[in-house]
């Protein structure tokens, strides 16, 4: 009787903790181990880096079935920061991000295709400045595992490039600066 109970419990524990379902992760805002940065050429002479400080998101990921993964990110565009208040003010204006009319940018994945052991192309819809267009984020699993504080984490980096004009961003910064690269480095805490 006792033996049977223990066996049942053990089975139950195995079933619950087993890697059967894709795990859901919350992008770590609490400890802010997540960055959404961008870079754009300045005149063709240097790279300008900027960051969105306020965003949130979730992803689901199962290493056994990576193509079933998905990701959703939502960015408050007014949180743009390039280390220069006047430029940030300009970036928030309708010359660029138009944040009073379109305060939120989003990315929602529509499909994930593995391209290697730890890499994948994440296709999804990027909504920015009121325009929604498909983009492909080239993503890499940086690492995953237990953290020292009792949780479980997985982290990815990824990037995608697009033309400013494609998202109806009006200001022309010159021939070398037509495209911006969006660079994501996010760590998720398993829920």
């Amino acid at each position, binding site marked *: 009787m006792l033996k049977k109970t223990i066996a049942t419990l053990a089975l139950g524990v195995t079933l619950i903790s087993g890697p059967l379902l894709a795990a859901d992760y919350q992008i770590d805002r609490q400890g802010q181990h997540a960055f959404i940065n961008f870079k754009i050429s300045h005149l063709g002479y240097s790279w300008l880096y900027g960051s969105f400080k306020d965003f949130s998101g979730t992803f689901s990921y199962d290493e056994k079935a990576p193509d079933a993964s998905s990701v959703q990110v939502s960015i408050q565009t007014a949180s743009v920061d390039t280390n220069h*208040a*006047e430029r*940030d*003010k300009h970036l928030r204006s309708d010359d660029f991000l138009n944040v009073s009319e379109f305060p939120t940018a989003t990315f929602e994945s529509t499909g994930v295709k593995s391209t290697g052991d730890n890499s994948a192309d994440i296709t999804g819809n990027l909504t920015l400045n009121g325009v929604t267009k498909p983009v492909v984020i080239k993503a890499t699993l940086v690492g995953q595992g237990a953290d020292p504080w009792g949780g479980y984490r997985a982290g990815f980096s990824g990037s995608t490039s697009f033309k400013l004009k494609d998202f109806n961003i009006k200001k*022309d*910064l*010159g021939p070398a600066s037509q495209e911006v690269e969006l660079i994501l480095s996010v760590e998720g805490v398993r829920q």
Partner: protein
Amino acid sequence: MHWQNSRNAYGLLSIMLHWLVAVCVFGMFGLGLWMVDLDYYSSWYQAAPDLHKSIGLCLLALMVLRLLWRTLSPPPLPLASHDQRTQQASKTAHWLLYAGLFALMLSGYLISTADGRGISVFGLFSVPASLTSIPDQEDIAGVIHEWLAWALVILAGLHALAALKHHFIDRDVTLLRMLGRSER
């Protein structure tokens, strides 16, 4: 003409300050509107805002000087031909112009110094930042700066129209006094 104001006439210094500020206010309004729409590759893209900021801070110094001078050498008495309401209205308008202009210059300063950067005045010296921790400082100061600029040029325009009305309709010396004459 004397440097100082008298009971019936403006002195040279007050007249010069008045017209210098007038030119700055309208010039800065045009410069401000023009510079924010410049093409990125325009040779003025950096020079125009630098000029705008430099003139703005010089104007601030000029306005402080003007207020000081006002206490040292008070402006002439209102014209006897102006009724109570006219005197009250012009007094209100003048103080609104002063207050609006100071608020306008302060808001501009708060945009450019929001991240702790100072403002270079014609490359000669730098005015340091002071207030930098107002939330969304550059954005809020920017909105205030734009609205105040419109309000001020409209008010200054009304002020000019009122002076022309006194000159051409009432045929008094209101405008002439600011040109250094005290009788028609």
